[in-house]
């Protein structure tokens, strides 16, 4: 009948459109997660030292889920066009598995974002920056990573400490054990540097004259990229899953209407 025929055609058209969108979103998810995993801001050593780098695990899962979504969307388009029940059943089951993985990735990214408080980074910086006594090889590697990351952070973002240079004065630190307070009220990387990498005025830096030292904290430079990463993975994944839900329901409905 023409009306049923039209209805089926519309259903097919919608499903194909839905799968095309899923395929493109899969590519976008893969690209976004590759970008995050490549760590353009160099913040991974900080997370590694907190032993809480699940945001990166979520991004890794996102890469593979993105590829799976692309492949499955092509399978779905082929199955809908051929009205093949077997293909569509395979498509539905694999999509459900992918759905479960992406759900795990979203929830992980969103949950572990909550661990990233200023206090966490402050304690880590005070305990590890320029710590000369380390217990094991992994400890040493993490400490060196933290020291290197903080040095880069302070140089590139013109900042000092987590909330400000006063962090080095208010709290005891591993840095204070090897660097006395009179010569190093705060690390020399907090000083404004010239092109050769030397402080332009070391006395001005030690006195705390604005213009010769960095008086703002680095927390924004850390939390900004990490927040964007966590929310990017979590919310984009959530959006994809909502769309996939609709497409899967439509596919199941279409599957049940196919006659042998």
């Amino acid at each position, binding site marked *: 009948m023409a009306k049923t025929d039209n209805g089926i055609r519309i259903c097919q058209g919608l499903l194909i459109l839905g799968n095309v969108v899923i395929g493109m979103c899969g590519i976008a998810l893969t690209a976004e997660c590759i970008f995050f995993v490549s760590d353009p801001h160099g913040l991974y050593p900080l997370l590694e030292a907190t032993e809480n780098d699940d945001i990166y695990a979520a991004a890794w899962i996102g890469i593979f889920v993105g590829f799976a979504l692309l492949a499955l969307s092509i399978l779905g388009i082929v199955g809908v066009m051929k009205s093949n029940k077997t293909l569509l059943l395979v498509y539905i089951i694999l999509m459900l598995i992918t759905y479960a993985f992406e759900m795990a990735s979203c929830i992980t990214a969103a949950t572990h974002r909550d661990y990233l408080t200023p206090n966490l980074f402050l304690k880590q910086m005070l305990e590890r920056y320029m710590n000369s006594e380390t217990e094991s090889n992994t400890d040493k590697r993490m400490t060196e990573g933290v020291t290197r990351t903080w040095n880069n952070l302070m140089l590139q973002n013109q900042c000092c400490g987590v909330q400000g240079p006063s962090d080095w004065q208010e709290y005891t630190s591993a840095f204070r054990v090897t660097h006395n307070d009179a010569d190093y*009220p705060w690390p020399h990387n907090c000083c404004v540097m010239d092109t050769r990498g030397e402080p332009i005025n070391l006395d001005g830096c030690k006195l705390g004259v604005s213009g010769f030292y960095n008086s703002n904290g680095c927390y924004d430079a850390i939390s900004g990229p990490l927040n964007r990463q966590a929310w990017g993975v*979590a919310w984009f994944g959530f959006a994809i899953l909502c769309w996939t839900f609709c497409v899967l329901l439509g596919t*199941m409905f279409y599957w*049940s209407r196919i006659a042998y």
Partner: protein
Amino acid sequence: LHPHSVISTGTMRPLLLLLLLATAHGLDTLSYTPVLAGAELGGRVTGSTFVLEQPRCVFQHYNTADIWLVVATAAGEWGDRGMGVYRSSPPSWPTPIPAGSASFNDSAQPGMPEWSFQRFPANTSAYLTLGAMQYHYSCPKPDGELTVLRVGTETSCAGDTSVPNCNGPLPGPGPYRVKFLVLNGSEPIATTKWSEPITLRTAQHPTSGPGMDGGHSGAIITITAILSVLLAVLLAALLATLCGSEVCGAGSFRPDATSIQRYNTHHVYDQPAARL
């Protein structure tokens, strides 16, 4: 003579005696009070240093004399910091200590060990440092320049007893009082007032604050709840779809899908046997 006890009892005759002694020595008491540098300096007060404003336009009349900074303990509790990173052994002090600033004898000789930095504060309650001449504090104060004195900045001579006037890092959080003393050789000519007590910063352990809040943010709860519901709906729909078809077996009857069953009856097998 104990000036401290004189001032505290407040009787007239010993006070008069003190005034006479002062004028007899020719000691001018200037009205300038040493003050900390402005609050715009981030390192104004640290764990072992502090920054004073230079005493510009104060010592105009003392062209040939030496101007020394006297750093003394003030009345108050002392904490034993025990840092000792720049000394061979950390000193320990009784608490509280009577105010060195009140018992300071103005006839100080900068080179003598009685007023040396290295013996402060265990064996002496005040020391002299930052020796300067009047032209260092010339008037007027140059515009746009930062004129400050950082007390505690020389770490190289902190343990060196041959440099008794070392401007070494202060050994404890204080409090301290400072004043400027103008000496001609070892004879005091003028002195400023004592400053307000200056207490240095003490570092604390970082508090183990809220690493993870008691309740997760609303976003996580939303995401988790909605996604779980959606997944449950999908699984239910899948089960309904599959059981609606022949897979579960109890669904609609499809005649074309049944298989034909063969029944062997006795008379079929018996017939060939009967023929034989």
